[in-house]
């Protein structure tokens, strides 16, 4: 029966979910060759340039401001002040200035363009396995979500590992989820808008060297511009000096304001490095002695020198996200392949997100046709996981949200559904669909109703969540807490619900 059903699915031109295919899913509307690089379907909110070599946050406006400020100030310095200073004092000054400038630029670009240490999201199998373990550990699948923390003892200190609902992993110690970039980052320090990227394990040393060298450069320029003006005013008076070299005024102003902030920041980070803490930990006071007499930093190596060496000269781990690798169709998935899930699980390639009214209607028909078959029994061992939306809309990290894997919403798995909510599977447009996928949705466990809503918007590959995506809630229900497929208890499900869900899951591949 299933095969018959899947045959009818094929007739509906779901060419991208052909179960015979082992190549990445192709959209029927784009005639691209299937070889896509992984960065093109990266679930986080990052921008990639140079075919995946460069990785930045989404908002880069302030980074360009930083760049402009540095370039303009240094440009003015070299053009107007250096000739005078080179003649009057020594030509070493522009040389040192040049070296500092290049170093600052190099470290800035390195900080901005590199992967801060993003943790790739869990594969569906991993997420399912974790869910199972958590359920087993907690025993019940009641309405209240089990607390998602694990405790671990590191060097005598108890550290809580939190579960990230977006990435579906237990975050390693010191990792944190950046809500702006929508990624979990290892040894997360902070998200720096000036640099246009998160600062984490892999680029912290570049960030530190950037602010340190920028402090030196700022002080250097400030000092020598002042010297320049003073020397000139000895010759021709203060006002004439200013008239002869108007750029100096601008430079002094910029440097004056920069010095306070940059030097202060460098000092702060020097302290952090020597005590092996992150900005995050310092702000929260995680290892402060104020919290308790026995509270100490378990990651510190004991002495300042070792801490500094470890932070600045330690081994640099490679990027875990393999941006430039090609997307392969995976080895066979465990989930019984309702077509959408299989392909979704098989690749993270771009899904076609176009929802045709026809396809929606046909899927709906299919769902209703399949009403008698409790196929989802098999799925319970490998539930369709509700993954988080790729964009949390800047909202709270670590919250669940439903993905916008496809155009039509579905009833989330794992929620006992009142029968009345199932039927309305008609597709109708939601004007606010796009913003919705930026939200996290709550699921009140007492009544999970959703009005399935379809929309005709496309989602870019970057917005595609990690598979398998469940479909979004029709109505935004505010911020979510946790809503996990872990609640999925097939035994308690209405079989119609199961099938409608299954059918709607297929739609997620559309």
């Amino acid at each position, binding site marked *: 029966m299933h095969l018959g059903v899947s045959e009818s699915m094929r007739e509906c031109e779901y060419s991208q979910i052909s179960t*015979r295919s082992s190549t990445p899913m192709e959209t029927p509307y784009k005639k691209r060759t299937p070889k896509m690089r992984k960065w093109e379907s990266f679930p986080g909110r990052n921008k990639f340039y140079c075919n995946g070599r460069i990785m930045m946050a989404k908002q880069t406006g302030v980074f360009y401001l930083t760049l402009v400020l540095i370039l303009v100030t240094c440009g003015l310095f070299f053009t107007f002040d250096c000739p005078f200073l080179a003649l009057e004092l020594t030509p070493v000054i522009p040389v040192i200035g040049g070296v500092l400038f290049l170093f600052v630029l190099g470290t800035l670009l390195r900080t901005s363009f590199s992967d801060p240490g993003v943790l790739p999201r869990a594969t569906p199998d991993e997420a399912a396995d974790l869910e199972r373990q958590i359920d087993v550990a907690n025993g019940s699948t009641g309405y209240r979500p089990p607390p998602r923390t694990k405790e671990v003892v590191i060097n005598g200190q108890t550290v809580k590992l939190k579960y990230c609902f977006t990435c579906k992993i237990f975050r390693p110690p010191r990792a944190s989820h950046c809500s702006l970039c929508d990624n979990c980052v290892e040894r997360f320090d902070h998200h720096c808008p000036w640099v246009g990227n998160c600062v984490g394990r892999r680029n912290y040393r570049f960030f530190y060297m950037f602010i340190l060298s920028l402090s030196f450069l700022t002080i250097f320029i400030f000092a020598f511009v002042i010297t320049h003006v003073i020397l000139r005013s000895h010759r021709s008076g203060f006002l004439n000096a200013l008239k002869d070299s108007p750029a100096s005024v601008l430079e002094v102003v910029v440097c004056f304001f920069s010095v306070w902030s940059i030097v202060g920041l460098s000092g702060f980070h020097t302290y952090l490095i020597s005590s092996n803490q992150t900005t995050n930990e310092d702000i929260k006071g995680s290892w402060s002695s104020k919290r308790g007499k026995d509270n100490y930093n378990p990651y510190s190596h004991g002495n300042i020198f070792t801490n500094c060496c470890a932070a600045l000269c330690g081994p640099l781990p490679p990027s875990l996200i393999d941006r430039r690798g090609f997307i392969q169709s995976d080895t066979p998935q465990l989930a019984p392949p309702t077509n959408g899930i299989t392909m979704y699980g098989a690749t993270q390639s771009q899904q076609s997100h176009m929802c045709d009214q026809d396809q929606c209607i046909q899927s709906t028909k299919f769902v209703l046709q399949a009403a008698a078959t409790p*196929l989802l029994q098999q799925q319970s061992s490998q539930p369709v996981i509700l993954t988080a939306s790729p964009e949390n809309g800047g909202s709270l990290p670590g919250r669940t949200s439903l993905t916008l894997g496809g155009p039509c919403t579905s009833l989330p798995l794992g929620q006992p559904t009142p029968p009345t909510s199932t039927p309305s599977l008609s597709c109708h447009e939601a004007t606010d669909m796009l913003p919705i996928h930026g939200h996290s949705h709550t699921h009140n466990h007492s009544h999970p109703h959703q009005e399935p809503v379809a929309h005709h918007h496309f989602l870019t590959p970057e917005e595609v969540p990690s598979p398998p995506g469940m479909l979004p809630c029709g109505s935004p229900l505010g911020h979510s807490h946790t809503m996990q497929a872990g609640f999925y208890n097939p035994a308690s499900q209405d079989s119609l619900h199961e099938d409608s869900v299954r059918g709607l899951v297929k739609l997620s591949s559309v």
Partner: protein
Amino acid sequence: MRAAAIGKTFTMAETHSLQDLQQPAVSSKVFVQRDYSSGTISKFQTKFPSELESRLDKQQFEETIQTLNNLYAEAEKLGAESYLEGCLACLTAYTIFLCMETHYEKVLKKIARYIKDQNEKIYAPRGLLLTDPIERGLRVVEITIFEDRSIGSGR
């Protein structure tokens, strides 16, 4: 029961259509999680998963994981060599990595070879497959358990 049987058949059929008929079907996957008791270093738990009891010796499993842990420790070790490399890299503005690999990358290659070797010698003959943790973002060691071939052929 019937549903499970149907589901299972469906799995057989569908996974079959996904791959060549020669390949065995995947039965389940076991995930060996990270062990954070020593801090943030890459280390995996050596606890023997119950699903592998029928297929593998506890000792072999522990040995594999322990070797992996040692290799990762070597990659992340803070010592004279890594400091030297770090300083040299800084002095050359990291351009040196255009020509040579970092120590970490060298060890990762070593790990990949080790895993391949282990798969060939120990795991594949038992119908298991180790996945290199780097492909899973160093989160887990994924062990795929394949079904016995006798079941997985034909619709």
